[in-house]
């Protein structure tokens, strides 16, 4: 029984490292911010960070199966555009709108999964192509930025609760507890890790590969849609921007890696990806707070991203059996 926590630690050390990184960087940010530890500062940070965190969670699921979803950013944008049309009006109408947005996201994810499972196409190229389709649909819905969103809901979720706790933070925790944790402990969640670890062995062991992948990609679409919905609450509008979609997709991949999940699948947790996303977001803010010239910020961010993802490789340099370098 004593050894159990050792195994748990070894399994999740990436996520713990990402969490530690976030705490340090966020502390630096708060200490150097003019206003410091106040509700507005934390709420603004949360409103931006949670969006990426949820998209990073979305990306984690396909990655665990040794796949990838290059369309998460576009589903995110699509959900934003749909929400700007439907999450309006009376509370009942807005509620239906929310359900519709989530359904659209899940459908997009399901389509990805279906092509990958039944079409037997590789995830990279599938999601690259479906991403353009989802972007096209977004363009159709919002050729120019516009629309609206239920003000009450938006204010509530982008504000702060008594005690300075950002509402978005609560939403994030809610999504983790209601979506990720049950999934991880379900048969399907574990099957996803099994497939990523060794698809051949999983097949031989009787794991239902098709259904597991379908569920993983569908959930990814759903989570991306949650992110898009929340974006609408932050911006109060819908915009079909391929730049935003692209940035969120690529940053979600970086967040997953920084959070300790291997792109080769089989090991990792969405909670690590959440911290990875928060790290990425906070670094950007940190550079701003340190009064770094805006001109140099993209370069610094690029370097830090590169360094963060290369960190894991440092231990490989000490390897004494060179064969371990090759899978």
């Amino acid at each position: 029984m004593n050894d159990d926590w050792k195994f748990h630690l070894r399994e999740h050390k990436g996520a713990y490292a990402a969490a530690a990184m976030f705490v340090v960087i966020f502390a630096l940010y708060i200490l150097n911010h003019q206003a410091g530890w106040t509700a507005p500062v934390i709420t603004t940070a949360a409103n931006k960070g949670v969006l990426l965190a949820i998209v990073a969670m979305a990306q984690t699921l396909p990655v665990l199966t040794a796949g990838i979803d290059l369309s998460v950013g576009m589903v995110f944008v699509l959900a934003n555009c749909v929400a700007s049309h439907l999450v309006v009006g009376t509370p009942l109408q807005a509620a239906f709108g929310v359900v519709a947005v989530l359904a659209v996201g899940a459908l997009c994810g399901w389509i990805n999964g279906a092509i990958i499972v039944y079409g037997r196409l590789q995830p990279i190229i599938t999601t690259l192509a479906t991403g353009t389709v989802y972007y096209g649909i977004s363009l159709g819905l919002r050729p120019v930025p516009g629309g609206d969103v239920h003000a009450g809901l938006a204010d509530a979720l982008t504000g702060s609760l008594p005690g300075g706790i950002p509402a978005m933070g609560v939403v994030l925790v809610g999504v983790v507890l209601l979506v990720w944790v049950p999934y991880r402990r379900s048969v399907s969640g574990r099957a996803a890790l099994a497939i990523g670890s060794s698809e051949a062995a999983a097949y031989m062991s009787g794991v239902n590969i098709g259904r597991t992948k379908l569920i993983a990609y569908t959930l990814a679409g759903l989570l991306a849609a949650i992110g898009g919905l929340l974006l609408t609450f932050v911006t109060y509008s819908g915009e079909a921007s391929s730049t935003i979609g692209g940035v969120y997709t690529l940053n979600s991949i970086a967040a997953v890696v920084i959070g300790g999940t291997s792109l080769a699948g089989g090991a990792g947790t969405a909670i690590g990806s959440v911290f990875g996303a928060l790290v990425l977001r906070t670094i950007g803010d940190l550079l701003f707070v340190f009064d770094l010239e805006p001109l140099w910020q993209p370069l610094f961010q690029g370097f830090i991203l590169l360094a963060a993802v290369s960190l894991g490789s440092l231990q490989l340099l000490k390897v004494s059996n060179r064969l371990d370098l090759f899978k």
Partner: protein
Amino acid sequence: MEPILELIDISKRYGGVRALERARFACAPGRIHALLGENGAGKSTLIKIMSGVVQPDEGRIVLEGRERRFAHPQDAVSAGIACIFQELSLMPDLSVADNICITNPPRKYGLIDRKEQRRIAEAALARAGAEDIHPLAPVGSLSLSRRQMVEIAKALSRNPKILILDEATSALTAADVQRVYTLLKRLRDEGMAIVYISHRMNEIAELADDCSVFRNGQHVATFAAGTQSDAQTVEMMIGRDIEHAFPPKPPVQSGLDAKAPALEARGLSWQGRLHDIDLTARPGEIVGLGGLDGQGQREFFLALFGVLRGVGGELKLEGRPVQLHSPKQAKRDDIGIALVPEDRKTDGLMLPMSVLDNLSFAALDRLSRAGIVASGAELRAAQDMVKRLSIKAPDLSVPVGTLSGGNQQKVVIAKWLMNAPRIILLNDPTRGIDVGTKQEIYALLRRLAEDGAAVLLYSTDYAELIGCCDRVAVFFDGRIVRWLAGDELTERALVASALNLTTTEAAAA
């Protein structure tokens, strides 16, 4: 005895290759039934059909009197058939308990009940005789032998009526092998039907109640164990008579010491896995590495091939001291070392690439000028090798993955022979290979030695070490504990040294 499982007139084709042709098989409860045959005889395909991994083109499967179809491995498992494959069906990143209960785990409120799952895993491990394995350990962190035990525990956890083992003991340490034998006999006595594939005749002799021989995808004969001699059995398997398994060894030559050793390792150490290894190999010798699995033999070969970093001690080749940094350097003409790795599918070959590409790959520098490959020379060299080693392949352009295991191994060896190496390291080269090809390889090794190479052979098969090698260095815990040669080289001595007992202790044991 009424058979519990019958396969009737099963046929299966892969493209143009006929894996099984109207094959028949039946096994009864409470009996261990051995499946014998060369590679390509159809045994693995038969097993895959029995366990639902592959569908037959024709034929019927009758289980407990009812005709069945297994569309998916899970169908066979639910029907009570559990299979332990040569390629493990374990997921390395998941824990032992997760692996054992991967399908149909115990559930609570729709989610996996981890406590109950752990209990089931511990029970299964205990039943398999592997209580020392921690259920939360990731399977990838276990040694190959331990992983195989987990595989066995996993199969047992499903309470099968029929247990199938495909070369299940080839990766096990001697101690684990004994545990498995005891386990299998006990399961048989409890009424389980056991189907067993192995290429080790001594295993068959120890375990089997019934034997079935397959050749070329067809059923040849079924008989009770012990009613046919080994020679008769092998003849049924390969369809021809074989005289001696091993080529004759040259007598110990007195002038041998005068020749400069091809390889001399002094005080070789690495990372706590190799301690102070002193080993000399002369041209014309076959030196064996013996001992239990995992005592440093593999690491020693990797050190000699330049794969390991931080190797202490001294290495001299033909009297010259060298420091090896990479396989690229080790294979150079002035050094001349070749390593035939133990896992041909992941380390020795690029399976989807053609036979030609694989054959020429290690010798491309020789077959090219200024980086441009000389195709004519490449083709000639490859055809040469195919003839020399009798590699059976329809064409040089087919993917090497379509060849049988024995022929694949020949391609790996041929690939290295293209460089005319002076020191040849072979890491368990005949594992999982049929009898006929094994003999060809033994004869080849002796020929290579006679032509002046120093051959180092690591094998887990005692008969092979005794039959092929001039001297054997027995490894224990990263050290060489004993050298055996001539009359001393016996199975008893090998076993005793492997366990690090002196002969008197062994005699008392």
